[in-house]
């Protein structure tokens, strides 16, 4: 066999193209496209979902996610600061919270908050507050660890410079460390926003009214009156409207972070 290594690698590559083409052609010819289309894409059903899938379901998904993310970010920051605190009980509380809510399925947490909290504490929250507490409470556990890592990644010299200018520990944290930490963790934080967007599908357990449906509940509800899976496909595509741009944003921020090039920021 007098074939050079490079030549052989080239033939192996051609062979892979060949196999791929054969597989694609086989699938294309053997599949029953009509059946698939009936199962997943019925244009009439798809059309019937508009405009509510956007004006109600997508809107609600975005509202729920935004509320959960906002609350989760605030609580996550508090937990991260507690975890870095010199007061030991703060660290213990934060650790227990983070480990518990990270280790338990979000669905169970939602059930606990929806059914358990009103009984245990004799309070009835409005639906949006429940959603915010449930999604944010779970999101905070994940974000706390990310924020803590970000705070610790800010060079020690930044704090020393701030302190030597007369800033107190807290002032240096707020003015110098936290803004820089958030720049560092923007890419992973964007990823957590994506995860939270998908987790918002679990709040169907909170038994919402029709006008409170988010994408998954809306899709399932339409599905129950439909002979095809079209509503699920449409709902899924709607999630991509949110998550794809966020994914690009995350990668853009990551790239910008590694090259260190930053646009001017006004004073």
């Amino acid at each position, binding site marked *: 066999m007098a074939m050079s290594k490079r030549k052989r690698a080239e033939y192996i590559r051609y062979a892979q193209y060949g196999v791929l083409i054969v597989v694609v052609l086989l699938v294309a010819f053997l599949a029953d496209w009509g059946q698939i289309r009936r199962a997943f894409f019925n244009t009439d059903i798809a059309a019937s979902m508009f405009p509510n899938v956007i004006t109600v379901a997508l809107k609600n998904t975005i509202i729920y996610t935004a509320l959960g993310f906002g609350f989760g970010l605030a609580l996550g920051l508090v937990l991260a600061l507690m975890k870095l605190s010199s007061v030991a009980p703060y660290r213990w509380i934060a650790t227990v919270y983070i480990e518990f809510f990270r280790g338990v399925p979000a669905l169970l947490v939602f059930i606990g908050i929806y059914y358990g909290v009103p009984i245990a504490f004799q309070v009835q929250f409005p639906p949006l507050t429940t959603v915010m507490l449930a999604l944010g409470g779970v999101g905070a556990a994940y974000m706390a660890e990310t924020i803590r890592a970000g705070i610790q990644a800010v060079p020690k010299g930044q704090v020393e410079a701030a302190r*030597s200018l*007369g800033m107190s520990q807290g002032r240096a944290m707020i003015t110098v460390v936290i803004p820089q930490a958030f720049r560092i963790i923007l890419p992973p934080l964007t990823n957590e926003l994506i995860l939270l967007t998908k987790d918002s599908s679990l709040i169907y357990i909170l038994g919402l009214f029709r006008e409170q449906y988010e994408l998954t509940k809306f899709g399932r509800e339409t599905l129950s009156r439909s002979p095809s899976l079209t509503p699920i496909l449409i709902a899924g595509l709607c999630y991509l409207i949110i998550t794809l741009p966020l994914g690009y944003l995350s990668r853009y921020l990551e790239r910008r972070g590694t090259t260190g090039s930053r646009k001017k920021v006004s*004073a």
Partner: protein
Amino acid sequence: MSETCVEITGLKKSFGPLEVLKNIDLTVSRGDVVCIIGPSGSGKSTLLRCVNLLEDPSGGKIVVNGTELTDPDVDIDAARTKIGMVFQSFNLFSHLNVLANLTVAQRKVLKRPEEEAKRVALHNLERVGLSEKAYSMPAQLSGGQQQRVAIARALSMNPEVMLFDEPTSALDPELVGDVLGVMRQLADEGMTMLVVTHEMQFAREVADKVIFMDGGYIVEEGPAADVIGNPQEPRTQEFLARVLDPTHHGPSDLV
């Protein structure tokens, strides 16, 4: 002119079992430039960092501008506003542009109005020759420019004494001169300065007093012409021989 600005007596500092400073006494008069030289590990940076309490002394007394920093009840944040510090690695706030780096502490700590803070900042940028960089981000500047901004940032607090911790050690050789030039100008204007440095030329020309440290002690101190020009202690002689003429000596057994 002999008013005391910094007075250190019996200063000790240990990191765990490691004794870095062993009984340091040092007095700096107002308007004086004191250069601290010595081999790495001699404790000179630790000494400097004790002067604004970035390091907490294990013993001894430090008085700066009439305030005893080692008093447990001292308002250290207030005291630090009068003590400017310049670091080897610049430590500019990387998320803020140059002007904001110079105004942030004026605004948040000294509570100066925005207009005044900006005016003070621009004046000090001019002093270090970087007026045109006010709206640049630190990452867009060369090392020498960043260090000059760091000096301007410290000056914007109107300090009574400036501490320099090896301010040119992280710079490319051709950028060292810019920073030393700014420091010399500052010295000429009468600023009280404590400078940890390896720049013997600067120490010789600018310092009113040179201190040679080794092993946690002040081994020799006096006018630059004496300590650098005509050292008396063997440790000082050997150190200076190596620093001033590095290629004509064998491997060191110092430190």
